[in-house]
């Protein structure tokens, strides 16, 4: 269920605390999940226990069909962190370097024993909630505006301007990504169908 991963993440973070480990839990969820009770219970516990966790909210503006302003009376999910006693930051989630920098700060805090951080990455989903959803609840203008903020070409332009990336390297990365996807599709397509008996397997250790 939405948000149910967050208490689980807190449990893993608690074991890192018990072990005085340098490990950090990264827990992802959407802004819609931040309205579920488990979000509150998990972030509250993580704050009380100062757990090494980075909570990453991918705020894509819609919980299925319902826009943000109809599901919460605040602009930034990040301010919810204040209620749990730790830092929350709202950033442009389509800016690769902004995400990187926010993450560096959060990881440093987690590893120095200063507890969790909530990073709200403001972003957008181009498609509907799932492929059946034509997303009639939003305007073409809004979609076009967010497409213009696509992080991949934006960051590509940035890297080219600094001569970090050239055409050959870009093509190599794109080919590699396409190959990874092709391999996964081929793997899934070639996988054997399940046997009927599998339906009742794997229930008990």
């Amino acid at each position, binding site marked *: *269920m939405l948000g*149910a991963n*967050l*208490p*689980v*993440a*807190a*449990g*893993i*973070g*608690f*074991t890192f*605390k*018990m072990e005085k480990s340098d490990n950090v839990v990264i827990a992802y969820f959407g802004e819609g999940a931040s309205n579920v*009770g*488990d979000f509150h*219970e*998990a972030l*509250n*516990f993580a704050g*009380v226990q100062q757990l090494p966790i980075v909570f990453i909210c991918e705020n894509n503006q819609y919980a299925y069909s319902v826009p943000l302003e109809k599901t919460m009376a605040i602009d930034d999910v990040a301010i919810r962190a204040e209620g749990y006693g730790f830092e929350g930051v709202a950033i442009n989630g389509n800016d690769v370097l902004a995400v990187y920098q926010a993450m560096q700060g959060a990881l440093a805090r987690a590893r120095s024993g200063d507890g969790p951080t909530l990073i709200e990455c403001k972003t957008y989903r181009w498609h509907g909630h799932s492929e059946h959803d034509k997303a009639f609840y939003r305007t073409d203008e809004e979609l076009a505006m967010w497409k213009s903020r696509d992080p991949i070409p934006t960051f590509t332009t940035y890297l080219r301007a600094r001569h970090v990336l050239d055409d050959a390297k870009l093509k190599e990365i794109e080919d590699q990504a396409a190959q990874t996807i092709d391999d996964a599709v081929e793997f899934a397509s070639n996988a054997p169908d399940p046997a009927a008996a599998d339906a009742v*397997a*794997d*229930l*008990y*250790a």
Partner: protein
Amino acid sequence: MSKELSYLEAIREALAEEMRRDPKVFVLGEDVGAYGGAFGVTQGLHEEFGDLRVVDTPISESAIIGISVGASQRGYRPVAEMQFADFISCGFDQIVNQAATLRFRYGGRATVPIVVRAPSGGNVGGGLYHSQNPEAWFIHRPGLKVVAPSTPYDAKGLLKAAIRDDNPVVYFEHKYLYRRAKGPVPEGDDEIVPIGAAAVRREGSDATLVAYGAMMLPSLEAADRLAKEGVEVEVIDLRTLLPFDKPAIFQSLDKTSRLLIVQEDVKTLGIASEISAVIMEEKFDALDAPVMRVTYPDTHPPFSHILEAANLPNADTIAAALRRLVEY
């Protein structure tokens, strides 16, 4: 002569011994720390094991279970306390959708060795939110195991078995028995009571009575009364509700041909319904009478002692049902 403990002390001893034996075992819940738990079950544990293994949590039942699931994925064996079984509904999703399904979701490549302790049951004047018996919700969920001990021996032995089990186990401990039930307990680190095995508490050939938890007391009393009337009732303590011990019940039915099931849970779709259906499917030919049930009525626990006494099965109502059963 082995020592005698109360049911509550037996639970505490199981926790302490398992925590000493295995550093991966820890307990968490509301007020379980220095305070020692609402009923005193965890008294002394915080002093011995400290903040990180006896964890006071916020009032967050869902997080308590979820944290347990998370810790279990790193090899820990958390024992989560629900302060009252009634509050387990607040952690329901984490039990039925996370803990119960995790192994299935990972195609058998994960285990979820958590225990959820749930102090359940009435006859303690607790009223609606401190008296419930929600075991049926969990016997309806594949992936879980559910136990409900009735004696200090089983309380200790089943808790140890539950902690060592690689599956999520919901452990219903009956509040009425905490200080009233006293008796010997398994000694030594490795003495456990296996999950899935019932116990015959009294042998008899005229009728079989299946019960568990605090219902064992009036059930045995009723069987004693029937004995004075010349009727020998075989009394089986289920001990484990999921999976329940079908062979033990079948074996008894071969002898008695009559079955009464007693549960403190409400009537509709409880463990008694399931046992009854299994008997109909697989053991119909052994029956000389319809399977009968004595249960709580389909209602909520009241505060009034008068109303609660009217609702709870007791030796009178159980004995009356046994007479109907053998006279059928």
